[in-house]
């Protein structure tokens, strides 16, 4: 048993079997996390660098916790307080750290393709923790794990991905993963936030009316409006976005069916998701966070194998 890849740069490069291996291994790690001693010694000789060039709460803590639960040694790098602020290049920074004997790098960067660049130049295994507007593979894996946990399977599951599709690396990773696993996908949101290639290159159906998308789906994965990545106004105001595309309890109750609500976080409350939904009974948002640790443990465990 091993993965077909040495790094986890994106879901795009994974085989269906890789995804299945990761999800089933994650299930075993989820069991470990329920035990009195929530820790196994698997990676006790592995050192992992968490390289975060961009802000993160959940992903960084989740990775660090996963590493500690696997008994790996961890070092954290954040761009503020580092020599990157003095102008050191990414490659120089990483090579300097690697010379201190680091085996794996977990990396987040605002430039799409940064982990791919690093993978070509350094010997360590690289896990992409989000690169620009490209991919966020561990988020897609934990989304899939949470959906599988809730519905038993991914095959044939109807998933609506709603919101800022254009700037979302979660959307792209989710689409790759769910397509590979046989789920049906609809993306919904304002036309300015849904890129053209989504239908042409990825074969995903687009729906501009959020209510129709919700009526069709079993699960709605609601994405954050990424104001920090928008250089030009793509909709008139947050208030207007909320009125046309925001999801609230009244909208859900008007559907005549129960659907499950997911969100990768952080939530803009009152914009894409109202509090009565985010904290409501149909939300599995906090389960997603819990599952994130188990899924990341599985990824790190499977990539630590030197024979890959």
């Amino acid at each position: 048993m091993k993965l077909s890849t040495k790094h986890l740069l994106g879901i795009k490069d994974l085989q269906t079997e890789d995804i299945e291996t990761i999800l089933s291994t994650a299930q075993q790690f989820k069991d470990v996390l329920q035990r009195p001693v929530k820790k196994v010694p698997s990676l006790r000789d592995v050192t992992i660098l968490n390289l975060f060039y961009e802000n993160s709460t959940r992903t960084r803590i989740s990775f660090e916790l996963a590493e500690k639960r696997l008994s790996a040694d961890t070092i954290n790098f954040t761009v503020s307080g580092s020599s990157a602020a003095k102008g050191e290049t990414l490659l120089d920074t990483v090579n300097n750290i690697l010379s201190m004997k680091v085996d794996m790098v977990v990396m987040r960067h605002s430039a799409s393709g940064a982990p791919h660049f690093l993978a070509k130049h350094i010997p360590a295994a690289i896990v992409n923790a989000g690169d620009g507007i490209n991919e966020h593979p561990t988020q897609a894996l934990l989304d899939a794990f949470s959906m599988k946990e809730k519905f038993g399977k991914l095959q044939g599951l109807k998933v609506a991905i709603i919101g800022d599709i254009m700037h979302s690396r979660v959307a792209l990773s989710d689409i790759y993963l769910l397509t590979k696993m046989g789920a049906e996908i609809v993306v919904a949101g304002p036309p300015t936030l849904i890129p053209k290639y989504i239908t042409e290159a990825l074969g995903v159906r687009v729906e501009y009316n959020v209510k129709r998308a919700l009526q069709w789906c079993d699960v709605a994965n609601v994405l954050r409006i990424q104001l920090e990545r928008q250089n030009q106004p793509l909709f008139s105001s947050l208030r207007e976005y909320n009125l046309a595309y925001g999801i609230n309890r009244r909208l859900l109750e008007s559907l005549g069916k129960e659907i499950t609500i997911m969100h990768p976080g952080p939530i803009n409350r009152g914009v894409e998701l109202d509090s009565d939904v985010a904290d409501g009974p149909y939300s599995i948002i906090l389960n997603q966070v819990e599952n994130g640790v188990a899924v990341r443990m599985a990824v790190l465990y499977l990539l630590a194998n030197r024979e890959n």
Partner: protein
Amino acid sequence: MKTILTGPQIVLTVKRLAHQIHENHLHLKDTVLLGIQPRGIFFSDRIVNELKQIANPSAIKYGKLDITFYRDDVRKQLHVPNKTDIPFDIENKNVIIIDDVLYKGRTIRAALDALLDFGRPAKVELCVLIDRRFSREFPIQPDYCGEAIDTFISQKVKVYWKEKDEKECIELLDS
């Protein structure tokens, strides 16, 4: 290829081992049985079924232990993890670890590590169906042993169970 035990011999051996366990743990009070995933479970299921005939079935505490994450060869070879299912407390209990073949002792070494993450047992014993003696890499010996055999490193011991493999016997393969 040589047959070490035939199907009927396995049945007799399991009976004997169950009786030996019963003899040492008379009312099975404070005793728990743990099969090692995945292949040890076929054997531990048999032992438990046999114990149910001769001891109070409600006194039997039986769980399954997966040692994948505790192996010492994680970085060399990946193994498929299985479910660990220990639905009781092992603190201060007499634990009997059950596995099909004892060879280098590395699996049992890992099992002891895994076990200690669930509590501090009063005592740990080991029950195996086949003991490939004189090939140990750790100072680990069985307390209950079905059959002790002498083998070369190049040989393989294969245990077939009718529940899984359509035939039931233990073979020594030259390779």
